[in-house]
């Protein structure tokens, strides 16, 4: 089990199965599917089932437009620490699709990226092996201000708006 850090009240307690595309999944098992499997299956979850979708960096999150009903979490994958696309995916899910469920970072998730991720809308972090939980938590609080309007999970954070009301830009 990887070490998991959650913020903004996210509750990442579920024991998710990250299902392969050809894997048989018991209907009541909380499972995370690839984008293509999710769309092939109609892009809807049945009431009462816990379902998640995972995106690779090249996947287009716009394909989830109207396909997030019954999705409790979206997992975004960082193949390495220089990967930048999931930041844009997360922001799109929050800002454009209004997704209010869990957005989870997986893969090369190191302490020093967490704050950027959080500000793009991630709220759950599966830390890469060897990353210390305390270090991760303190990295998350390295800054309490920012120049940009950023998205905290679920709500349009207006820190920037408040600040710019009284300052330059």
């Amino acid at each position, binding site marked *: 089990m990887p070490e998991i850090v959650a913020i903004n009240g996210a509750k990442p307690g579920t024991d998710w199965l990250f299902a392969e595309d050809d894997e048989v999944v018991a209907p009541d098992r909380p499972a995370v599917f690839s984008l293509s499997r999710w769309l092939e299956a109609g892009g809807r979850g049945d009431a009462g089932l816990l379902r998640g979708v995972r995106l690779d960096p090249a996947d287009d999150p716009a394909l989830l437009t109207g396909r997030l009903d019954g999705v409790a979490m979206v997992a975004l994958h960082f193949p390495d620490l220089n990967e930048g696309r999931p*930041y*844009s995916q997360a922001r799109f899910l929050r800002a454009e699709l209004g997704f209010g469920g869990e957005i989870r970072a997986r893969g090369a998730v190191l302490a020093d990226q967490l704050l950027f991720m959080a500000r793009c809308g991630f709220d759950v972090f599966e830390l890469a092996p060897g990353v210390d939980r305390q270090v991760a938590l303190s990295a998350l609080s390295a800054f309490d201000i920012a120049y940009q309007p*950023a998205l905290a999970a679920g709500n349009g954070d207006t820190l*920037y708006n408040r600040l710019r009301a009284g300052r330059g830009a």
Partner: protein
Amino acid sequence: MYRYDEFDHRLLSQRIGQFRDQVARRLSGQLDEDAFRPLRLRNGVYLQLNAYMLRVNIPYGLLSSRQLRRLADIAERYDRGYGHFSTRQNIQFNWPRLVDIPDMLAELAEVEMHAMQSSGNCIRNITADHLAGIAADEVADPRPYCEIIRQWSTLHPEFSFLPRKFKIAVSGAARDRAAVHVHDIGIRIRRNEAGEIGFHILVGGGLGRTPVIGKTLREFLPEADLLSYLEAVLRVYNRYGRRDNKYKARIKILVNDLGIGAFAALVEEEWQRLRHSALRLGPADIERMKAHFPRPDYLPPVNDTSEYEALRRDDPAFDRWAENAVFSHRQPGYGIVMVSLKRSGRPTGDMRADEMRALARLAEEYGFGEIRVTHRQNLVLPDVPLHRLPSLWRELTALDLAMPNHGLLSDIIACPGMDYCALATARSIPVAQAIAERFDDLDYLHDIGDLSLNISGCINSCAHHNVANIGILGVDKRGQEVYQITLGGSSGDDAAIGKRIGPALPAEDVPAAIEGIVEAFLAEREGDERFIDTYRRVGDQPFKERVYA
């Protein structure tokens, strides 16, 4: 100049605290080099050939005398007593110790300077026309917009892991002095018929192994939409830019692969979603930022300019300097003084701490305590009363800072090359020095006239050799340094990529080759033609014949 408020100071001090912690974790082994490298790069720290290197931003080329003094202090306390001005309005320290860098950054923060995003795959220092706010041909002052962009781009959560580095330059004048055509995004401020401010946006320019002149993405972007539009461009790039091959990862490759039309359509789609978001700039936002860049309290022109006129008549050295190094100011009675960092026997763009302090004093005594940094590795004293030029000239001469070679052949741009840079394939500074030595006759240099000569130590082209009238690129040929020569490049409004004229030459043959090129030019020249115009008229044949005779 922009003054930090409590918010800016707090953000920067949190950034330094974060970096201090990252360095400590690196030294204790909690972070390995692979994890640390992208973190240190985002704070301007390279591991170079001989040592670490710290690159400090000089946003849009603006420096106060207080800041320049602090750079001098840092050079002495933590480095070897000098700094190197780069081609992107940065200063580089070549010998800092990693353990000292957090302290250096803290001292810089006290004078409102930083190294954030001066390297790494993120939005780099925002550069601008070094004559911003003082040029006679200005449409609007680019500095408030540069500062708005600087703040927006600083620690941008979505764009801190781009496919590759990203450079933005802004020009507010009729004539481009910011090389906007060779930036990832080039911005030119314009006014429409209604007199409103807007931006002509160029995209996909850049040098390196695939030199490209930027293409127009939008003719006139309304002022209020600056940030939302930049955000849209960056988002398209972040999403679609290639990440599989570092040589194909710049935005210019994406623009070329998609075609400018398809790229523009993607940006447009993204922008429509963003246009009315919190990024929209209101008139009050812009006014507040403009208030940071007031016009200084200029004095009325002094009518008694007899000393100046007498000296121009009687002292040819002063006359030459006044002709070459002093530019017209938009304020009557003032001049703009170029301070050349291309001195004979000195590395291009280098300045010692004692010289920095002396120049800081001159900036205060002869101006409003301000210094500008140009992308040709020179400095500027922006607001000098004309009647004080004679005494300023004497002081600069005593400091070896009055070399009247602005825009001439010996005003060479040279990157650090293999003397310092870990990526280099050959040296650049010694070649620049050898050429400058060969062309040390000022009369001859002035006869030759306008000519740009740039030398890069590898294909990364930091010295912009491919947009110089004469470009020199050092390459490695089976363990030997050899130099390719290109002709016909230009970086201004008539931007063009230079063409190679033939096989590469060994270092010792380069000065003679340049001499041959100059002789060919003088033989072909009509009237007072500039080198570039002669080249465009006659082509490269006469030059090839001299070099490869």
